[in-house]
């Protein structure tokens, strides 16, 4: 995980948290395991690490969205002060809604097209996929296989074979058709 090198408070917090985790609980998780079930235990521990990475990325993403919400609220406040009197009138509800939707939409759109969101979203997706993949592998190894039930891995293998076979059949059918057409066009009329 990243060492602390960012001046940004949020990045600093998450980096600090990650480093503390790595230096404490993280060491337990990455310790070599012993015993007959050592391989399963190791996989479970690795899966836990992926969960921590995913959780960190998720919290970072939530913090970013919270910042944007605060910014949108600030923008909203600025706009409504100028639009409404000191004593907000109920007649201005529609105008209030319009300001709200435009302000929040604009503020969020600005954030969503930023490099920051793109980068953090990419990291969140990657962390989530790693976590999901590990969860799936653990579930297959520890529940489905012992119960003799088909796994996604098994089904993927079958689908791959089907795909290859289907493609081969199509190519062969095409070749046969071309050869037949070629044969028909060059067929010699037998002499009587």
């Amino acid at each position: 995980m990243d060492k602390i090198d960012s001046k940004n408070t949020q990045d600093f917090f998450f980096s600090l948290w990650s480093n503390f985790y790595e230096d404490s609980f993280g060491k337990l998780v990455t310790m070599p395991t012993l015993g007959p079930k050592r391989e399963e235990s190791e996989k479970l521990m690795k899966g836990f690490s992926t969960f921590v990475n995913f959780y960190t990325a998720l919290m970072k993403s939530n913090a970013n969205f919270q910042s944007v919400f605060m910014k949108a609220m600030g923008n909203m406040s600025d706009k409504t002060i100028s639009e409404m009197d000191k004593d907000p009138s109920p007649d201005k509800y529609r105008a209030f809604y319009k300001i709200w939707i435009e302000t929040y939409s604009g503020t969020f759109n600005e954030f969503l097209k930023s490099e920051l969101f793109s980068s953090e979203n990419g990291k969140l997706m990657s962390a989530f996929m790693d976590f999901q993949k590990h969860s799936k592998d653990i579930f297959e190894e520890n529940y489905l296989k012992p119960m003799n039930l088909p796994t996604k891995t098994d089904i993927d293998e079958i689908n791959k074979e089907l795909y290859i076979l289907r493609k081969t059949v199509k190519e062969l059918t095409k070749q046969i058709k071309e050869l037949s057409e070629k044969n028909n066009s060059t067929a010699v009329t037998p002499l009587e």
Partner: protein
Amino acid sequence: MNKLESIEFFEKFSHGMTLFSQLSDFSVGTTPAEVVYTEDTMKLIHYIPTVKKPFAVPILVVYALVNRYYILDLQPDKSVMKKLLDEGFDVYVLDWGYPTGIGKYLTIDDHVNGYINNAVDKIREISAVDKITILGVCQGGTFSVMYAALHPEKVKNLITLVAPINFDTNKGLLHVWAKNLDVDRIVDYFGVVPGDVLNIGFMLADPFRTMIDKYVDLFERIEIKPGDEESQRKNEEMIRNFLRMEKWIFDSPDQPGETLRQFVKDCYQNNLLIKNAMVLNGQKINLKNITMPLLNVMAEFDHLVPNEASKPLNDAVSSSDKETLVFKTGHIGIFVGSKSQKEVCPKIAEWLRPRSIPDEAKKDKTVSDEAKKVKTIPDEVTKDKPTPAKPREQRRTTTQGRAQ
């Protein structure tokens, strides 16, 4: 909100909910058609011509994989397909269907050199022509460009509608997000990537408007005029059209894994297509192989496929007969907005008409330079007198819309 406004709002909401509960039918894709070819989950659909003798060169519409094609035939009064049929064209569309588990392994090559090529061959066989017109929409336009570059001998005219070709731009949200996406992890986990994943992405393009304002606006537009049948009819039609769009928006097919992987990496991240460096099954795609007439149609306010992504196509091809059309509308509006019927389809038809004569019929006829220009229609070719087609096999016809 004052008392009157409160009452009005709740009246509209209540009336709207009553209409929702009474509506029974809001079918989509109702223009009469028949399935003429199937391959795996793909179906080639032929729309029943609405003129006696359609133009000899048929059109194959290739839509994207990320949404369903029936956006082009969403409402009976705003159907791109119906408009093209009424303009005298013979129209086919590729229905990609919904991928199954095998879809995980389908590549772009399978779609372009497999499904599209086989569909084109089928149309050529049915229509007894050597070349057809391909109209590619959005990602379907990208695939159509790849196809035209690899099989130019089968393509008479190429029309691209809001199709991304150059991905080196930060003007579109998808272009920005895709740069940092680890598509390998996504495809390795999902295999066939759920349509919901992409739906979330599309909704994030403008979350407040797509998840809140859209629904508020729906109820705001309801008219409360007791006893007025015309107003009641308008309300029902408005809600029906809203539901059609709502159905399409959330009817996102799952994405074949290997296709998505190559599309994101080779197109969005490495921009290989415009550089003539994209490879399908060992064959490099060279856009200079595109020499047929090209019409590149764009939407000025397109937030998904910015004009910067589509415009460079014209400079990348070798066609001498090429034109760009830009309409003041958005990505979806270009198919279902009012401009679609009044401007987009008529302009496409105007461009396509003189170019829908098979080459064999043109042998003894000199096509003037004037005929090649976009805005004029040659005297010898008019809407009511298309060139007679070669005899075709008899086909079943149907008066009913295609089953959902």
